[in-house]
């Protein structure tokens, strides 16, 4: 899918040391993590991240035995000022696009980047563009 970001997700048990193992594997492979979140459900969780080299991250984690998947998400440039998130959520909500989950990070260039997993990627891309919101793809993420 064009103009999206490849997010790396992996299954992890909810117990001490698991995150460290993931981070160590990526560190050794010299993969840089741009954004990162953990969702937990009792005994286990899903770690999601945006990295500078998703293919390398995927291969590294898979060869270490992790259950990994790649998911298309969209990256949205958000103004790092009050109301920045509201603008985006409002456009999507009005156009009936559901946000499954989201997480954000602030870049060094006074801009915030919002990572969105939505139920209809093409529709989200279309309505955000029409609203004048800039989307960020994998290439751009690896350059940050």
């Amino acid at each position, binding site marked *: 899918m064009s103009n999206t970001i490849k*997010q790396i*997700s*992996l*299954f*992890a*048990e909810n117990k001490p040391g*698991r995150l460290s193992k993931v981070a160590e594997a990526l560190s050794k492979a010299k993969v840089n993590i741009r954004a990162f979140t953990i*969702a937990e*459900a009792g*005994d*286990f*969780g*899903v770690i*999601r991240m945006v990295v500078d080299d998703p293919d390398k991250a995927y291969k590294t984690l*898979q*060869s270490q*035995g*992790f*259950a*990994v*998947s790649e*998911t298309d998400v969209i990256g949205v440039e958000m103004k790092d000022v009050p109301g920045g998130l509201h603008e985006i959520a409002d456009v999507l909500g009005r156009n009936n696009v559901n946000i*499954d989950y989201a997480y954000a990070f602030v870049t060094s260039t006074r801009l915030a980047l919002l990572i969105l*997993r939505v139920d209809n990627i093409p529709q989200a891309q279309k309505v955000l563009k029409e609203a004048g919101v800039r989307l960020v793809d994998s290439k751009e993420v690896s350059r940050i």
Partner: protein
Amino acid sequence: MPMLDYWNSRIERAPMEELREIQARKLRQLVDTVYKSSHFYRKRFKEAGVRPEDVKTLDDVTKLPFTFKKDLRDNYPTNMFCVPLNQVVRFHVSSGTTGKPTVVGYTRGDIDCWTTSLARALTACGLGRGDVIQVSYGYGLFTGGLGLHYGAEEIGASVIPMGVGNTERQIELMQDLHATAIACTPSYLLHMNEVAKRMGISIRDETDLKIAILGAEPWSLETRRRIEDTMGIKAYDIYGTSELSGPLFTECKEQNGIHVWADHFLLEVVDKNGEPVKEGQRGELVVTTLSKEALPLIRYRVGDITILNNEECECGRTHPRIMRILGRADDMLIIRGINVFPSQIESVLMTIPEVGEHFQIIAERNGELDELTVRVEVTKAAFSDKLADLMKLEKKIEYELHKVLNLSTKVELVETGTLPRSQGKSQKVIDKRKI
């Protein structure tokens, strides 16, 4: 040379009445011999008020007292032997993980009988001269390796005496020496398949493997299906126990029960009070060894739960079959008053494609209440980014287990590769209850 259908066609297809005559004659001899040669059996018979001349027909076997594993332990090391030690050509010793070890001695005749039993069995699985059999059971004190080895050589196959462990080397040799069959535990074969995949080798497409002889731990039909489908081989169940002579019997090509050679072994199936069950009912297997010399066992309570089938098999063999071993009487867990066999849990899990073949069962007592946790590995293929899917999967497994066990369990998803892979018997049950 065409493959043999039978190792010994005459005896394997002998009429049941003839087999029963052989059994009755051998039983009378056996009772006589042990009464004369064994202090242990003489004492036991006297306690039970039975004399050798009381055993005239096969049905009289029920007059004889049972022998238990405890007897072998109590008579450690060789006090139950019925021949002088200078006639013993080999010892095997059980691992003793569940108690004191037990020692079994073999005369030359015992080894020959064991070898013949396996030659018949391996032939029934379609193996013979021209096959290359990789024996990946432990060699040494454990009976698996040497037992299979002798049987495989007897039928003229080429044997790779591999033993357990060093899995990558096992896969290399399987390819280089063109192994057509492997004998090991089902969990080890599954482990091997995983390692092969990691090495970039497909056992299905890049080896000559066509048959696996699997045993030494209970495994379900669903596990068999998974092994056969993913590896493109035929998987046959092999049965035996160290007290009798390790591996002895297998299924035939019909894969519908394990043939037990009636000219060497007499079978009964009993309930927990030691009373015979009706034909076709499940119960505990009881074996009398009719040919063993060094350590004959009379009405030995093996502890495995099975069903006996005396009907003639489609393959033409008349010898009785024991239907799949459903577990060991002492593997059974009683959770909130309900009997649970690990094999039942395995059967359920194997029908759920999202989970791997490895699992662990943990029994705990929380206050007054017993709780059962089943830990399963999420397969890489099944993992989606969605948390909700994983939570649904847990619920689905809990629901399926409840349908079969009639018991609520807690299912825990764990990462692939984190549950113990054993190279011998797998440690699938952890009972933390202090009762």
